[in-house]
């Protein structure tokens, strides 16, 4: 029932907002629907805590420790982003960048996107997972091109084509998976693509097929994760879309895509019995982290900067999953969580910052603490958090990842060190003059919704020094599951 609510409420929201999205109360409705989804997700989480993992609807849906925390996270960030987007989009409208019709599109697509992500997270069917991922892509394509400027169209086009092609590779991988599954499970109804069934027989799946399948799946979903060198859509889409969309892209979609990759990795690694997938993940992870960091160095646009930072962090998470083992997996899951929270809060702050300055170019943003201390401190603290400054939680996961890497694969640590060092310098040398210094810009017409920023940061801070035992238990269970 709660499952149905989690999946259905955003769909309902999409429908309602498609009808009333242009009205004054659309933003409030958006917030309301998101809140309802969050509550439903909370119910689902409670149930899973109480009764353990569950399957539903002819095993088509699966809720286990791995995805339930992602569902909660997605619902939460979805909700806070909706709160943030209310004043943000209103200011955008007043600046004349949007009209009510586009707002309607925005609101309904936002809900549709959430629905697609919940579907991708909750489904037990690898095929359905593919369909949901594609749906998520399609709904965000329209969000990225919302402003209908040249740049936003170009970004959306690239996003569409690159992710479309990527996802086509994932489909081929899925077909190969299905092909291997048929050998082991037979062709009875829809069970051959069910992850739980595949997982149960993964030892019998043909390793060579799964090896190839993993390549296609990794390239496919990896494109959406933003792994270098498949990442090229990501900075464009982040920079040109509306800020709430950047926030959910970075904070949520990347996670969901990575979730898909990891689900595949569990199967493939179990089947081929070698560390090949782990090696690929580590390689991609390191490459993304290092390239992301060097890209960061040269950015001029604030949202592009943080887009590349997402690539870097996805690289680190992927690397950690590649390291494997309970500690690194735990760290990777933690990093996914804190990255989502931190990165979305940064985008909130950066969005308002660029609205205040009237430009996304960082040269034009100056002295935020002078004009609007909350935006300034939000951006500063968020950036420090994402750069792995304790006591923020990002540091906790980086601590575990780095120490693990140092013992298991010491060759990788210089790369990580370079990536983290360059990323630190790259981001901080931009953030500092934006936040500090003098400014003559005027404050925003509407008071910015910065509660989400500080709530997120407070959560990240808490995770750095104290992790509630149930959450830790989830992470542990999920880390065991990933193996």
């Amino acid at each position, binding site marked *: 029932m709660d499952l149905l609510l989690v999946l259905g409420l955003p769909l309902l929201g999409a429908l309602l907002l498609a009808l009333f999205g242009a009205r004054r109360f659309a933003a409030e409705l958006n917030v309301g629907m998101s809140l309802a989804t969050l509550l439903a997700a909370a119910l689902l989480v409670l149930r899973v805590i109480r009764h353990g993992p569950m399957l539903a609807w002819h095993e088509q849906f699966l809720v286990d420790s791995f995805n339930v925390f992602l569902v909660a996270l997605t619902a939460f960030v979805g909700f806070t982003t909706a709160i943030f987007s209310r004043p943000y989009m209103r200011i955008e409208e007043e600046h004349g960048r949007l009209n009510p019709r586009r707002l309607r599109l925005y609101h309904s697509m936002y809900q549709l996107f959430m629905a697609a992500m919940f579907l991708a997270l909750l489904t037990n*069917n690898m*095929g*359905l997972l*593919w*369909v949901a991922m*594609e*749906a998520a892509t*399609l709904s965000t*394509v*329209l969000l990225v*091109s919302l402003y*209908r*400027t*040249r*740049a936003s*169209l*170009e*970004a*959306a*086009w*690239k996003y*569409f*084509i690159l992710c*479309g*092609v990527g996802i*086509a590779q994932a*489909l*081929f991988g*899925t*077909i*190969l998976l*299905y*092909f291997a599954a*048929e*050998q082991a499970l037979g*062709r009875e*109804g*829809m069970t*051959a*693509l069910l992850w739980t069934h595949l997982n149960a027989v993964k030892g019998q799946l*043909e390793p*060579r*097929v799964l090896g*190839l399948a993993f390549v296609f799946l990794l390239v496919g979903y990896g494109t959406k994760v933003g792994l270098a060198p498949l990442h090229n859509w990501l900075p*464009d889409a982040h*920079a*040109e879309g509306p800020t709430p969309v950047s926030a959910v892209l970075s904070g949520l979609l990347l996670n969901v895509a990575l979730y898909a990759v990891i689900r595949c990795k569990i199967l493939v690694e179990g089947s081929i019995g070698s560390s090949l997938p782990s090696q690929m993940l580590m390689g991609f992870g390191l490459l993304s982290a290092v390239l992301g960091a060097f*890209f960061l160095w*040269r950015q001029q646009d604030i949202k592009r900067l943080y887009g590349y930072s997402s690539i870097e962090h996805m690289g680190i998470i992927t690397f950690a999953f590649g390291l494997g083992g309970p500690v690194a997996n735990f760290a990777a899951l933690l990093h996914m969580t804190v990255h989502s929270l931190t990165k979305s809060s940064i985008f909130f702050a950066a969005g308002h910052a660029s609205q205040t300055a009237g430009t996304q170019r960082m040269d034009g943003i100056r002295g935020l603490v002078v004009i609007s201390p909350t935006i300034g401190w939000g951006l500063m603290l968020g950036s420090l958090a994402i750069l792995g400054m304790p006591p923020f939680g990002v540091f906790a996961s980086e601590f575990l990842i780095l120490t693990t890497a140092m013992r298991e694969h010491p060759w990788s640590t210089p790369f990580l060190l370079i990536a983290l060092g360059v990323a630190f310098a790259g981001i901080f040398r931009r953030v500092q003059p934006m936040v500090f210094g003098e400014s003559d810009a005027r404050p925003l017409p509407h008071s910015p919704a910065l509660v989400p920023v500080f709530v997120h940061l407070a959560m990240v801070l808490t995770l750095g020094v104290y992790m509630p035992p149930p959450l830790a238990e989830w992470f542990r269970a999920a880390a065991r599951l990933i193996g």
Partner: protein
Amino acid sequence: MHHSHLIAELLKLLASILLLISFAMLSQRRTQRLITLFALQGVILFVSTCIVAYSAGLRELYYSAALTLLLKVIALPWIFNRLIHRLGIRWDSEPLVNIPITMLVGLALVIFAFGLAQPISMMATTITRNTLGIALAVILLAFLMMISRRMAVTQVIGFLAMENGLFFAATSATYGMPMVIELGIALDLLVGVFILGIFFFQIREQFESLDLSNLEALRED
């Protein structure tokens, strides 16, 4: 036995034609022709799916064959034709890579795909198993086509050709995906093309052309 042998031969023939069409698309510069070739691919797919359905006695496959006919032979070519008429596109501009080289690379890809697929197709139980290599080759060739073209429309047709290859792979390796998935895929495809259509107009409105060289403003440096 003889019967199934004949069917297998027929499928191989169709697969070869599919591959040939892929090459033809790779070398074709006129957008109009490209759409025709795409439709032809759809026809081949439809026929081969029907044959597979008949020989394996799978009713779902008929549905998916019908879907193919509806979508890829009728709907999409029709949409595209209307689009290019309204947008006034006839020729692709000069491809990024010249055609002989593209063909050579394509040839290498085909060999690669066959080599890759051979050990796998040995394991398959379907009568269409030998065609998995061809499906992979079609996918890779379509990929190549997307890389080597400049116009938005051609790129999209390449994308759809890739989708065709995928569909062919699904039928040849596994007798098609489960129906729900097929429907989902089809829906996504349709929505995708719909969005693309919107895009074409928006892009042309903004850039006065569908040449992708306009879409190179977002870059580093």
